[in-house]
């Protein structure tokens, strides 16, 4: 729908019908405390019956509300938010390390690819993720530059992409809202006009459960989820609901989730995934890894066939550790046998 279509609809179609077609509109009226508006009439006539005192408290008259309703529809119903920004690759052009030494590196990453970032604490892994997030343009402490689709971004494109390009997940993140898993997923899906809510909620939930070691229900409260369960839910939610083509993950190692499956899931959704990590499974699960030393990318290593072959052995070790943890938790005694 373009501006004229929207205006025509608002002028001619009864409010109730618009709400039915675009349920998100109910919020517009709730926010203005006029949710009991006469639904059988087009907006302008319906507003004649609304309390003018309430409207004036918001600094609005009927004309202003009509204009704002058109803007609202334009943003939330007019354009499709199904795809998110259409990009195919991101390029990082090196700047300098902490000591000002040059970072001779240029790397391009395509959709569906996973890159891990390794290095000691304080070496600059999170800084690299931050450079990607803000689309650094030689204006951060590292002097790095980020290109999208191998092109310099002009101001306009930069602003257009800001906030839509990147989804983030880190150790420090928690759910703070007190809702059930079901209500929360529905709310998130509801903020995306173009998706089928029930279907997406279901897929997210099933997928999160298969990533998490311990099962949880749709009626579990978010605040009661374990660390692993909430991480699993966040990853599934990012995979199915977020339109951001790039996912930045900062150290989620001790979460007790199926990490390899998690990364595969994101990559299969055609995301570019960056993972800062100390975890061998995640580091080697990526196609390439960046080695960070003293603030700069000192090497780019492509995961070799041999390393890939090692992954399964590392996974077995990891699973064994997991079993020991589980036994301890259940009050069992650990024997030499358990170490295999």
């Amino acid at each position: 729908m373009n501006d004229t279509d929207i205006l025509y609809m608002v002028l001619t179609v009864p409010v109730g019908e618009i709400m039915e077609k675009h349920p998100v509109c109910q919020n517009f009226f709730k926010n203005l405390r006029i949710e009991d508006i006469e639904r059988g009439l087009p907006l302008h006539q319906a507003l004649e019956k609304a309390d003018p005192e309430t409207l004036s408290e918001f600094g609005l008259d009927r004309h202003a509300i009509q204009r704002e309703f058109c803007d609202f529809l334009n943003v939330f119903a007019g354009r499709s938010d199904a795809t998110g920004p259409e990009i195919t690759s991101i390029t990082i052009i090196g700047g300098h390390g902490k000591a000002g030494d040059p970072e001779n590196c240029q790397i391009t990453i395509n959709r569906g690819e996973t890159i891990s970032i390794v290095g000691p604490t304080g070496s600059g892994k999170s800084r690299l993720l931050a450079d990607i997030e803000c689309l650094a343009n030689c204006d951060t402490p590292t002097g790095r530059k980020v290109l999208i689709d191998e092109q310099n971004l002009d101001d306009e494109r930069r602003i257009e992409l800001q906030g839509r390009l990147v989804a983030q997940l880190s150790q420090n993140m928690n759910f703070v809202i007190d809702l059930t898993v079901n209500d929360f997923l529905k709310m998130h899906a509801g903020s995306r006009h173009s998706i089928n809510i029930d279907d997406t909620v279901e897929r997210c939930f099933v997928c999160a459960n298969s990533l998490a070691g311990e099962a949880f229900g749709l009626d579990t409260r978010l605040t009661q989820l374990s660390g692993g369960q909430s991480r699993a839910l966040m990853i599934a939610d990012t995979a199915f609901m977020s339109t951001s083509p790039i996912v930045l993950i900062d150290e989620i190692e001790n979460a007790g989730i199926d990490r390899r499956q998690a990364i595969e899931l994101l990559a299969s959704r055609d995301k570019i995934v960056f993972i800062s990590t100390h975890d061998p499974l995640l580091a080697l699960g990526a196609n390439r890894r960046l080695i960070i030393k003293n603030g700069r990318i000192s090497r780019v290593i492509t995961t070799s066939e041999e390393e890939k072959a090692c992954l399964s052995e590392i996974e077995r070790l990891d699973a064994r550790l997991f079993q020991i943890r589980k036994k301890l938790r259940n009050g069992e005694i650990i024997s030499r046998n358990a170490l295999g």
Partner: protein
Amino acid sequence: MQLITVAGPPSSGKTSVILKLIEAMQIAASDVGVVKFDCLTSFDHLRYEERGIRVETGFSGKLCPDHFFVSNIEAAVEWGQNAGFKYLITESAGLCNRCSPYIHGIMAICVIDNLAGINTPRKIGPMLKMADIVVVTKGDIVSQAEREVFAFNIRQVNTAVQVIFVNGINGQGATILASHAAKARSIQTLRDLKLRFTTPAAVCSYCTGEIRIGNEYQMGTMKRMEFKKP
């Protein structure tokens, strides 16, 4: 001198955001001045001074903070002009949700935090609705999904707004904010510019010092709630 007005609920992170913004703008501390409009007490000036940034603080005391802002903003601009600043940033603590110390044509930034509750953007009113940019803080500790719903709720109220997530501790996001701030309008005076929203009507007997409760003490502009019959 370029003027930027910043407002937001108490503890939302206004001072941290302004400090990170100044850092990201890569300007000398002597080129920027801050005027803090607060209510009763403020310690923010210490944080500015610590970084060599000149700051003036005004307390609205028993006046409505918006009325206080509009009657002092011109003098604040004059102070900044005389000090030779390139940028003047005002910081207002929005104490009621109706506070909206923004001026037409002058960059208006509202700072709110992600922990404030997911529906809070829908309740804040003109302070958020009238802003050009809404900066969201404390996003680093909530889930991506909550950030997305939060931003969605902001856009519902202010469809034209730029939503920018800024981490007040490590400054992540401040570069983006700085690129917007660089476009703030340059002014010599505010004379004849207009507020974006009327300040709260506040001329009742309680504004002038009445403290007794009861119908006979209530004069001026009053608004009564209607309670349903039990």
